[in-house]
C-alpha cells in the first residue's frame, strides 16, 4: 500500500480523493479529460427511482468563493443508470465506484439501493438524505434524527455493501443526526451537502435561481464543513468522508486532521476540471512539507 492509501469500510483506496456527487456526472466528461483511475473513487450523480428532470433554469448562481445550485437531482433514473451508465463506466474506470442515492420516501431509497446492490461495479452506497421527505411533511430526512435513522435501517436491510449516510449541514446540531445514523447501523458518514442559500438580481429585483433558493458550495463553506466533520468525528466511531469547499492538497490534509478518512471535492471540479488529478499529484510534496509519512496516520490527528 502506498503512502496515500486509506481504507474506507473495508475497501482500500489508492488515495483519499473522491469527486463529489453531482459534480462528476457518471464519469464520462472527465474520462475524456484525464485517466480517472488516478482517483480513489468517485461518487456518481444522485440517482432516484424514476427519471427526474429537476428544476427550471436558471439553476446556477455565483457567490463570493463559491456557487449556488438548484439542479434538483436531474438524473435518468436508476434503471437507465444500471443499463446505460455503468456499462459505459466499466470501460474507463476499473475501481469500485460510489453510488449516490436520493429518494423522497423510505421506500424509494430502499428500492434504489436494492437495485444498485446487485451491481458489481459499485463499492459503496452513499445515501443523500438532504431531499424532502414527501410522506413526513416535506422536511428533509437529514434534518430529523428519527427519519435519518429509519432510512439508514431500511437501506442496511437490503444491501451488503457499505452504507454511507450523507448529511445536510442545514441543522442546528449535526452530531444528533450523525449519532442517529451511526446507531442505526450506518457504515460511514459523508458531510457536508450544500448549505441552503439564495441570491437576488439587482436589475430584476427577483431571485437569480428559478427555484428561489439553492445550495451553496465551494471554498466559502470549507471552515463550516471542517467544523462539522470535527464535531461528528468526536461524536461517532464510524469513518467520515469530509467534504465542502476542499480545493487543495492542504485542504485534504486539514480535513483528515479533523477526522476524515477520505475527502470529496465537489464544485471545484466544475471550474477547475483537473483539480482532483492535480491535488492527488501534489499530495506527496505537501505531506513531505508537513512531515507526514503515511496519510492514514493523520486521520483525526487534531481531535
Amino acid at each position: 500500500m502506498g503512502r496515500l492509501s486509506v481504507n474506507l469500510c473495508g475497501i482500500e483506496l489508492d488515495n483519499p480523493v473522491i469527486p463529489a456527487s453531482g459534480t462528476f456526472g457518471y464519469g464520462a466528461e472527465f474520462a475524456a479529460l484525464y485517466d480517472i483511475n488516478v482517483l480513489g473513487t468517485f461518487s456518481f450523480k444522485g440517482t432516484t427511482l424514476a427519471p427526474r428532470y429537476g428544476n427550471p433554469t436558471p439553476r446556477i448562481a455565483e457567490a463570493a468563493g463559491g456557487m449556488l445550485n438548484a439542479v434538483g437531482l436531474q438524473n435518468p433514473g436508476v434503471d437507465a443508470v444500471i443499463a446505460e451508465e455503468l456499462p459505459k463506466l466499466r470501460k474507463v474506470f476499473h475501481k469500485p465506484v460510489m453510488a449516490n442515492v436520493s429518494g423522497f420516501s423510505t421506500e424509494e431509497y430502499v428500492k434504489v439501493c436494492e437495485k444498485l446492490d446487485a451491481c458489481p461495479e459499485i463499492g459503496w452506497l452513499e445515501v443523500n438524505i438532504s431531499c424532502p421527505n414527501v410522506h413526513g411533511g416535506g422536511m428533509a430526512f437529514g434534518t430529523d434524527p428519527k427519519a435519518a435513522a429509519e432510512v439508514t435501517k431500511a437501506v442496511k436491510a437490503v444491501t451488503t455493501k457499505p452504507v454511507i449516510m450523507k448529511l445536510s449541514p442545514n441543522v442546528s446540531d449535526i452530531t444528533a443526526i450523525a449519532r442517529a445514523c451511526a446507531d442505526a447501523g450506518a457504515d460511514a458518514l459523508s458531510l457536508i451537502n450544500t448549505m441552503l442559500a439564495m441570491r437576488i438580481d439587482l436589475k430584476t429585483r427577483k431571485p437569480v435561481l428559478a427555484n428561489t433558493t439553492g445550495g451553496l458550495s465551494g471554498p466559502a463553506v470549507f471552515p463550516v464543513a471542517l467544523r462539522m466533520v470535527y464535531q461528528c468525528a468526536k461524536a461517532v466511531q464510524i469513518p467520515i468522508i469530509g467534504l465542502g469547499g476542499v480545493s487543495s492538497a492542504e485542504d485534504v490534509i486539514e480535513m483528515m486532521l479533523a477526522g476524515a478518512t477520505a475527502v470529496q471535492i465537489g464544485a471545484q471540479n466544475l471550474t477547475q476540471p483537473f483539480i482532483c488529478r492535480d491535488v492527488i499529484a501534489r499530495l506527496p510534496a505537501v505531506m513531505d512539507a508537513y512531515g507526514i509519512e503515511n496519510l492514514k496516520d493523520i486521520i483525526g490527528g487534531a481531535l
Partner: protein
Amino acid sequence: MDQVVLTIKENAPIARDVYRMVLAGDVSAVTAPGQFINIALAGSFLRRPISVCDCTGDALTILYKVVGHGTAQMAQMAPGERLDVLTGLGNGFDLRAAHGRVLLVGGGIGAAPLYWLARELKMRGVDATAILGFNTREDIFYAPEFSALCARVILATADGSCGVKGFVTDAMDGVEYDYFYTCGPEPMLKAVYRASKSDGEFSFEERMGCGFGACMGCTCKTITGWKRICKDGPVLRKGEIAWAD
C-alpha cells in the same frame, strides 16, 4: 475541450459597452463556429462563457458586452495579460446543413458567433445575407466586417437611428432564404422562430456551472429529450426546440 492559458493580444472597445479581445495561444480544441470558451477571472468562482467570434490557427477573437462585474473586469485588462480558459466547448453550428441562400440573424452581442460562420460560408461560396439588429446606432459593431463576407447586410435598429426601424424580424420580411442561423437574446430567438420560413439553427444562452456537461446546471427540454446547453448545445436545430407558441 482543453484547459489552456491564452495571452491577450488586443482588448479595445468597438461600440458602446462592447469590446473585442484577441487571445493567442493553443486554440486547437476550437473546431467550429458557434462554440464557446469559458474564462476564469480572478476573484470570481464561476467562469464566464463567451462565444468564439473568430478563430485562426493560433488565436481567437471574442466580442463581449459589459453587463456585470466579470465583463467589467475584462474590459480593464491589458495586452500581455494571461487568461485561464476552457476552449472548444459546445457543439457549434452545423455548416453541412447550409444549402441554397443562407440567412444569418444576429441580435446585439449575439452577432459575434455569426462572424466566423459567415467567413466559413464565404469560403464555401455560399450566398449569405446577414441581418444585424441593435437598439441604436451607437451599439452597432462589425457592419463592415460582415459586409466583406456576406452578399447583403441589413441593419435594423429599434429606434430607427440606422437602417430598418424595428426588430430583426421586420428586416426578415423581404429576404429570400433556404436555411438560417441565429443568435441573440431569447425573446428575439422566439420572434425569429415564429417568423422563419425555413429550417435553421438557434444558439442559446444559459447560466452555467461548468460549461462542459458535468453539472446539469444548464439543461433544457427539447423535442428530442433533455439537452445540456453547454454540451449538447448551445446550438439547437429548429425542429428540436420545444416552444409552445
